[in-house]
């Protein structure tokens, strides 16, 4: 019988990290302790707990990590609530990878990169950022603008300040929405911060975050002179099959699970506004 | 040699104030009834949604019995009056659909009627055992 994509693989959660009050990162390997499958930066996988449900999450670990996969998951629905209550050793089912990755090996190659993320929106970008950091010499300067409501809501904070910020040629710009004790960094919303920082346009930008942030950041970048062809984002819609067959996640004739989740803004312009 | 005899699954919904206490009293008085009967405690018989009854059949129950305070004795004044109407209509509908009417029952058992509780359960189990397995309102997925 041929392989069936809907039948998942068995995974084991080996480690759970509380990143923010409502985001946890789950490390998943096969029962043999190996990485479940290979993926490209920006791709997703379906995680499920039988009897609870199945949901699509972006793979937040870099493909260059050969040992395991990680998923940063915000508690919001049925499956995520269940996962948040789980403990290490819990089995889950995993299938994927699904979707199109970021064009890291062609379009991004040799270019300066700007990553802009808000809140849990960093999760899908983490795999790209770490991929690009891994192959540091293939890319130009990397700027990362990341903001969240508060310091506590910054995802992967330790990794950002200990690893990302110390890399050469990587500039990390953190911001939080409101003043907070113990925070001497920037305060303000991401779109404004991006404009304040005033990047040159000779680069590729990747945005991920809440719709309102994306909208204004895009406007900001446009005002800085960026073309839509230079800016990428990832979308999230209701998904069931992950392979463009169940009929839910399409925006116009594009299926987010299959044709996305990575889109360039000029491509999105071609699609109806239904996401 | 004991033959592997058929043992029905019976779900009994008992109101907290009368029937559950009646069941307890049956226990205190060591009045035996078959272990096939398992009680779910509800505040009042009127808490029992027809969906629970169908759910029980779906999950493999062979009989469902509701026990509440005697009409007029409801701890909440009127709950069992509503139960009576709801179940009269529901049972009549199940009968109409051709589902054995003996599989469902409502019985009023007061807190003092431990003996009645035991007798009722003995009789109900006997009736359902005689009917055999529930085939008309079953979900095969739950029967493996």
């Amino acid at each position, binding site marked *: 019988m041929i392989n069936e994509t809907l039948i998942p693989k068995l995974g084991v959660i080996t480690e759970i990290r509380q990143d923010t009050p409502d985001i946890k990162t789950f490390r998943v390997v096969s029962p043999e302790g190996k990485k479940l499958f290979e993926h490209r930066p920006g791709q997703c996988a379906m995680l499920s707990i039988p009897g609870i449900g199945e949901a699509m999450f972006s793979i937040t670990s870099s493909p260059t990590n050969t040992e395991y996969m990680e998923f940063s998951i915000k508690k919001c629905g049925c499956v995520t609530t269940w996962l948040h209550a*789980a403990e290490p050793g819990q089995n889950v089912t995993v299938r994927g990878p699904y979707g199109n990755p970021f064009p890291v090996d062609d379009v991004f190659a040799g270019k300066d990169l700007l990553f802009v993320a808000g809140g849990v929106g960093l999760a899908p970008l983490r795999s790209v950022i770490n991929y690009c950091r891994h192959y540091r010499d293939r890319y130009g300067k990397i700027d990362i603008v990341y903001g969240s409501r508060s310091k506590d809501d910054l995802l992967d904070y330790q990794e950002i300040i200990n690893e990302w910020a110390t890399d050469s040629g990587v500039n990390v710009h953190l911001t939080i929405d409101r003043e907070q004790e113990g925070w001497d960094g920037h305060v303000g919303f991401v779109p404004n911060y991006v404009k304040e920082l005033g990047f040159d346009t000779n680069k590729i930008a990747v945005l991920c975050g809440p719709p309102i942030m994306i909208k204004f950041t895009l406007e900001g970048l446009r005002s800085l002179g960026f073309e839509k062809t230079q800016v990428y984002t990832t979308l999230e819609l209701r998904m069931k099959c992950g392979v463009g067959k169940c009929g839910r996640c399409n925006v116009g004739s594009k299926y987010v699970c299959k044709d996305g989740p990575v889109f360039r803004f000029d491509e999105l312009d071609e699609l109806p506004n239904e996401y | 040699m004991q033959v592997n005899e058929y043992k029905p699954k019976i*779900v009994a919904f008992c109101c907290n*104030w009368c029937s559950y206490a009646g069941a307890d009293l049956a226990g205190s008085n*060591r009045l035996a009834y078959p272990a096939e009967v*398992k009680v779910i405690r509800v505040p009042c018989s009127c808490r029992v949604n027809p969906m629970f009854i169908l*759910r029980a059949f779906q999950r493999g129950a062979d009989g469902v019995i509701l026990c509440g305070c005697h009409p007029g004795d409801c701890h909440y004044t009127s*709950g069992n009056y509503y139960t009576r109407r709801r179940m009269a209509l529901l049972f009549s509908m199940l009968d109409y659909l051709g589902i054995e009417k003996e599989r469902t029952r409502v019985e009023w058992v007061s807190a003092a009627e431990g003996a009645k509780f035991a007798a009722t359960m003995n009789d109900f189990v006997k009736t359902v055992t005689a009917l055999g397995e529930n085939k008309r309102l079953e979900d095969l997925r739950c029967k493996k």
Partner: protein
Amino acid sequence: MQRIGVFVCWCGSNIAGTVDVVKVAEALKSEPGVVHSANYQYMCSQAGQQLIKDAIKEHNLTGIVVCSCSPRMHEATFRKTAAAAGLNPYMVEIANIREQCSWIHKDMQEGTEKAIVLGRTAIAKVNLNAPLKPGESPVTKRALVIGGGIAGIQTALDIADAGFEVDIVEKKPTIGGKMAQLDKTFPTLDCAACILTPKMVDVAQHEKIRIFSYSEVEEVKGFVGNFDVKIRKKARYVKEDVCTGCGLCTEKCPMKKVPNDFNLGMDNKRAIYIPFAQAVPKIATIDADYCNMLKNGKCGVCAKVCTAKAIDYTQKDEFVEEKYGAIVAATGFNPISMDKFDEFAYSQSKDVITSLEFERLMNAAGPTAGKLLRPSDGVHPHKIVFVQCVGSRCASCAEKGKEYCSKICCMYTAKHAMLTRDKYPDTDVTVFYIDVRTPGKQFDEFYRRAAEEYGVHYIKGMVGKVSPEGNKLIVQGSDLIANKQLKIEADLVVLAAAIEPDKSARPLATMLTASMDTNDFFTEAHPKLRPVESPTAGIFLSGACQGPKDIPETVSQAGAAAAKVIGLLAKDKLTGNPCVAQSDELMCNGCSSCEKVCPYGAITYADKEFRGPNRTTLIRRVAQVNEAICQGCGCCTVACPSGAMDLKGFANKQIMAEVDAICK
């Protein structure tokens, strides 16, 4: 996901005798959510509870399942245990593996299997439990006592002495009840009036007590701490605050042939009357059925003779509405009707009387002024037969009698026999009995004195027939010890009629939403541990309305009920039952089905704004539950078609999970 701890109790051998508790604990370990499973001899003991507390802390438990006796027994205990360890008490579920498992099954395998299923069911429920917090409601610091007999009097006095206001509602014109009709009391032979009437006076004079005599409870609304009661003050056609109780009217009233119910109809009173000399309140009452003035407007004598101008023929029933924090039912008892006992010729001969009638005959204030005279001819009887258990312990004659033992008959019959022999040594007294039951302090001594010192003939056996013959009564009975049939020519036959709850108790129970047993005695919240409380919160039981009892027992129960009431009224706030209905406004249709079935009026409606699709706003009518009024019956949850209404602690999902677990 929960972290559940399972605790299987042996209850000594009560559970462990037919349930393999170790196996149960082991089997439940692998159920979803269970992280700890233990068993112990007595979970409810100090050590058992400590075990639970330690486990909660050690294993960071979020839910508890105790497989033990009925939740009606120890649910509260284990909830407290959990709370003491910092766990929300409503995260505790009990699997009843004693009353509903070990005690009814003999086979170990069967019992063990069932216990596992019951445990699994409780685990399935606890997995869906959510911490609940009880709502709070204020307490009206006033109690209502329904019934003014010795039970009601004692309860009222005890509550009032603790400093709380008490109202007594008595349907008769005076308080005093049955005890006021008694002559002497066993086993000490005190005169009933001598010990009762001072208490009646205490009641009348107590500044914290109000008496609503000749009144009845009309309507009860609300809930523990917050009852709203409507009391009907029946028209007595006499202004209560004006009447001095001089009694002149009762002497002048021309209507002389009114059967005197205080003397059980054995003599007459006037149409305006004061029941007895020591009545409290001592106020005249007009019997509207006999008063000529009220019936056809002719007479008016009492108004004319009344110097206080207390007579008011236009008086109507009045209604008083009052708030109470607690209600005590003390509605008492009555002897059953003898109408169906033709074999004893009660309706054929005036000389066949009940013990209560005998009591009046012996009483100095009674119809014969205390002389023992036959009602038929006023002649002193020389041979009296007492018949015990008339209508009591009557398993085979449930249609006319009672299955239960009326408890007081053996003792009062001994009293009557003894008093008769004492006062009239020439009178021969025979008592027919099934058993003589005398468990009580000085009771058996009392009975033996009657039989041995006073020469009362006790015959074990039942009377089959009493037939009037001339001015004699032929009593045919059997002597089971001598094994022979007896035929006695008696002058007077006294029947120890069974007692039953007062007829007003059932409608009252309905109003109070208090449950009753098949005999119409009020049910106690627990027969042993909560004998003076009704299962309905805020309703307490005092005296014979809960079951047959004698005066000492009644008084002690009355005091106990008072103590419970005081305990309640002493609180400033009550924490309610958090297992109440709640409406999910997003799903509610506002159809009003739930409101219509709610017995407490706990559901109201409000128009609320909701976000519609595409940034629109919708206004919808939605149901809202008043948690202080809701009692958590769940009737609304089934009336609600959309499932918007659910019951906390007994949620749809929880019950379905239980169903699933049972059927698995």
